[in-house]
């Protein structure tokens, strides 16, 4: 039920419009806040409601009746002044009784009501004191008592807590809420303190420059700011400005960031709450890895110049475990889990899935005579059972490999898959499979195997997601085949045109042109096939297996350190698989209020990125981290 309706109210002071066509509805019984920086017009609006100020234009109605016609002293509205405006020559009692005396109420009733309200605000003992003998908090209570004793329809509070110190303020916040509940009066509070507004109000109108930016419940304001100003004013936010694409927000200098859906091509702001930021320390835990290899892995992941060269014969098997909570949650969504192990002799075995999420990364390397190195990271989402799987394939081919490179591929797969390879591959798998698609793609496995087979020429580092058993079967079928053959085979099958196009386009986007040309020609395959009903619903997987002919990459790959390709079979904005789209350095870590506040510097981003974590975060300044968040946790504001 609307108590006050403010309609197109405008108030100018000279050339400045303190209020510019403001319209608001204030409901009966609610605790409403006008929030904004000083000079935003909130106090002017309050004074118009109280009757001390008249709008140049617009209407204000109370219960549907024109309020502007009524002089201030006849309005059923009371105001608690920021300065409290207690009458210094009167005792607390007399101050409170003042309003009732003006109503010409019987003395007895006045006495009773004053005593009652003094009891309510807990000042019965101070009734006969003068205002200057009271503390700040007590004065505030007197001011409040003086206003509510009149039992107004609407109580206006002008910066009610600003004059109090922090501890008293916290108390009074509770007190105000309790009182509002107790007396059932509609409260309108004006404040510039967003925390105050958030903690007090049922609904908040955020104002700026005489205009109302957004009216919403505190949670809505926080979660879904509709304007850049609101996003910046309510809480500390990370704001990225870019262009909306189907798969996120394309930010200049930063790349594609996870974002909720928007209108493609529009420029927009992406707002990410510090507490939704997920940090992953970059340096992975490595086993059996030589330092150089590790270094290489780190730097390449960052997209920086290749620092280390991988020596021939280096074997590295890396397992990455989910590092953050968010990741664990994400992982928990993944029912099926796979890892693939490939043995040195080139046989990969796939094992049945475990009900937990695991990420396994297998680094494949081979003896190489050539230094330049290239990495490809392919992420694909597969649909199979009720979750979506993501496949990340990282390949690190080195060219002109020795005829018989040592290789070890580890993979855990749902399906049984065997691969023969003289390669070591790192396969990181995280997948969610969706039920509706019963297609299975054998390509991932097939591709992987093909690479493995072709490893005489290529060193591959593969992070792959395991597919259904069918895939395994397909993989088996393909085993031993030449890579090209595998691709061709795959492509001769039933191909979903869209998915195919998607994969191709993604590949094109992610890979340096020439390489892409090769890759597309040789490797990409998308296959859809139907899964058996009783079996697991098949996964739709796109696999992209990079392979290179021996001579070509030599020159080109030297400059290229990383390519990242995402293949999304379905337009489902699921989070990044493991870390996140940004790389940053921890600048500062502070701990207060039970929360760790982490300030990060991201190359290419003007502002710092703020992250917050419950408890104390064990991060040292200077740590390199991957920064990520769930698209669903971010808010997209059209610019």
């Amino acid at each position, binding site marked *: 039920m609307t108590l006050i309706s403010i309609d197109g109210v405008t108030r100018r002071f000279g050339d400045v419009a303190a209020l510019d066509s403001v319209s608001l509805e204030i409901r009966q019984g609610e605790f409403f806040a006008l929030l904004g920086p000083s000079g935003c017009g909130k106090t002017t609006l309050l004074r118009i409601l109280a009757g001390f100020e008249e709008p140049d234009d617009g209407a204000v109605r109370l219960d549907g009746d024109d309020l502007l016609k009524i*002089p201030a002293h006849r309005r059923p509205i009371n105001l608690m002044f920021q*300065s409290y*405006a*207690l009458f210094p020559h009167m005792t607390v009692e007399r101050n409170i009784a003042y309003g009732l005396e003006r109503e010409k109420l019987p003395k007895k009733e006045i006495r009773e009501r004053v005593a009652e309200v003094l009891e309510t605000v807990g000042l019965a003992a101070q009734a006969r004191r003068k205002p200057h003998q009271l503390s700040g908090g007590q004065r505030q209570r007197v001011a409040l008592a003086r206003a509510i004793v009149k039992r107004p329809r609407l109580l206006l509070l002008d910066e009610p807590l600003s004059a109090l110190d922090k501890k008293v303020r916290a108390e009074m916040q509770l007190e105000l809420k309790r009182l509002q509940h107790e007396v059932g009066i509609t409260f309108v509070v004006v404040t510039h303190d967003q925390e105050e507004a958030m903690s007090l109000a049922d609904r908040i109108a955020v104002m700026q420059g005489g205009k109302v930016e957004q009216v919403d419940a505190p949670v809505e304001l926080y979660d879904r700011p509709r304007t850049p100003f609101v996003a910046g004013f309510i809480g500390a936010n990370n704001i990225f400005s870019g262009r909306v694409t189907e798969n996120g927000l394309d930010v200049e200098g930063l790349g594609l960031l996870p974002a909720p859906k928007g209108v493609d091509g529009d420029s927009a702001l992406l707002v990410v709450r510090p507490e939704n930021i997920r940090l992953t320390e970059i340096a992975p835990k490595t086993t059996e890895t030589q330092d150089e290899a590790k270094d290489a892995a780190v730097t390449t992941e960052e997209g920086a110049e290749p620092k280390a060269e991988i020596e021939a014969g280096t074997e590295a098997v890396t397992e990455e475990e989910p590092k953050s909570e968010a990741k664990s949650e994400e992982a928990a969504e993944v029912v099926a889990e796979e890892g693939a192990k490939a043995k040195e002799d080139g046989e990969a075995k796939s094992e049945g899935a475990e009900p937990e999420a695991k990420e396994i990364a297998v680094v494949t390397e081979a003896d190489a005579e050539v230094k330049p190195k290239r990495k490809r990271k392919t992420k694909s989402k597969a649909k199979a059972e009720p979750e979506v799987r993501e496949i990340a394939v990282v390949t690190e081919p080195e060219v002109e490999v020795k005829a018989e490179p040592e290789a070890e591929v580890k993979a855990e797969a749902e399906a049984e898959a065997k691969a023969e390879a003289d390669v070591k591959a790192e396969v990181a798998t995280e997948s969610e499979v969706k039920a509706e698609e019963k297609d299975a793609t054998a390509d991932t496995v097939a591709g992987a195997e093909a690479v493995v087979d072709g490893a005489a020429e290529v060193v591959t580092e593969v992070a792959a997601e395991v597919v259904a058993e069918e895939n395994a079967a397909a993989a088996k079928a393909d085993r031993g085949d030449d890579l090209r053959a595998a691709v061709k085979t795959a492509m001769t099958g039933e191909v979903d045109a869209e998915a195919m196009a998607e994969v191709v386009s993604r590949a094109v986007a992610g890979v340096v042109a020439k390489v892409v040309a090769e890759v597309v020609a040789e490797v990409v395959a998308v296959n859809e096939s139907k899964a058996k009903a009783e079996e697991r619903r098949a996964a739709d997987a796109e696999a992209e297996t990079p392979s290179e002919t021996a001579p070509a990459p030599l020159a080109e790959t030297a400059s290229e350190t990383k390519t990242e390709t995402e293949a999304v079979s379905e337009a489902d904005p699921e989070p990044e698989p493991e870390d996140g789209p940004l790389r940053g350095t921890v600048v500062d870590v502070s701990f207060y209020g039970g929360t760790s506040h982490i300030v990060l510097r991201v190359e290419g981003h003007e502002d710092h990125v703020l992250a917050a974590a419950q408890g104390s975060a064990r991060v040292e300044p200077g740590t390199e981290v991957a920064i990520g968040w769930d698209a669903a946790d971010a808010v997209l504001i059209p610019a």
Partner: protein
Amino acid sequence: MRRNAKRGHGWLQLPFWLTYVFLYVPIAVVVLMSFNQNKSAYAWGGFSLRWYSALIGNEKIRDGLINTLIVAFGATVLSTVLGTLLAVGLARYNKSRLVDALSTMPAILPDLVLAIGLLVFYAAVKMTLGLHSVLIAHTVFGMAFVTAVVRARISHADTSMEEASRDLGATPVTTFMRITLPTLAPGILAGALLAFTLSIDEFVIAFFTAAPTEPTLPIVIYSMVRFGVSPEINALATLLLAVSFTVVIAAQRMTKLSEALS
């Protein structure tokens, strides 16, 4: 070290003390001589209160004092009321600095100008001279002082108090009576005391506007002094001094109190 510093300060204090002595020697002399036994006003002849008793027996002086008090009280009441209204009005409705400055002009103007102006005005409107004419004349300049003091007080006052009163349901009149006036009371009182003391010893304007039959005390004293200063005058001056001191100090206290309260 410390002594040196003190001595240095002593040197610098010298002009201050000299000025102060210069200021108060005449007053000290008057007070001292009012207790002089000797008939001569200039030579000390021992302590006595005889001039004070002579003063009380002097009818001229007594009549003059009564006239003065009538004028002073009347002018104080009038100038306080009008001056307060003027100050409030200025604060509330006037935005012009010129009007603001002119409101206190009579307090700064040479008394002579005001006196001549008033005399001409009375003649123009064909008003008779008497205590009433002095009273009105004193109200004019007293009002200027009251306005100045109250105006200062208002500028320090919290205007939200009046708004609070209206917000709580008081009409503008009630607000003025119940909130505005009590808030300004210290300033008003200080202004009133100032107007009173100024009126009591005011000579120039009274001399111009008073009827010869009803002289105020300063005029009486003037006529007595013309034939030589008698110790009686010294006694009178001392009494006036005592009254003025008391009132001025009271006014200052009042202002300080009001500042402490606001």
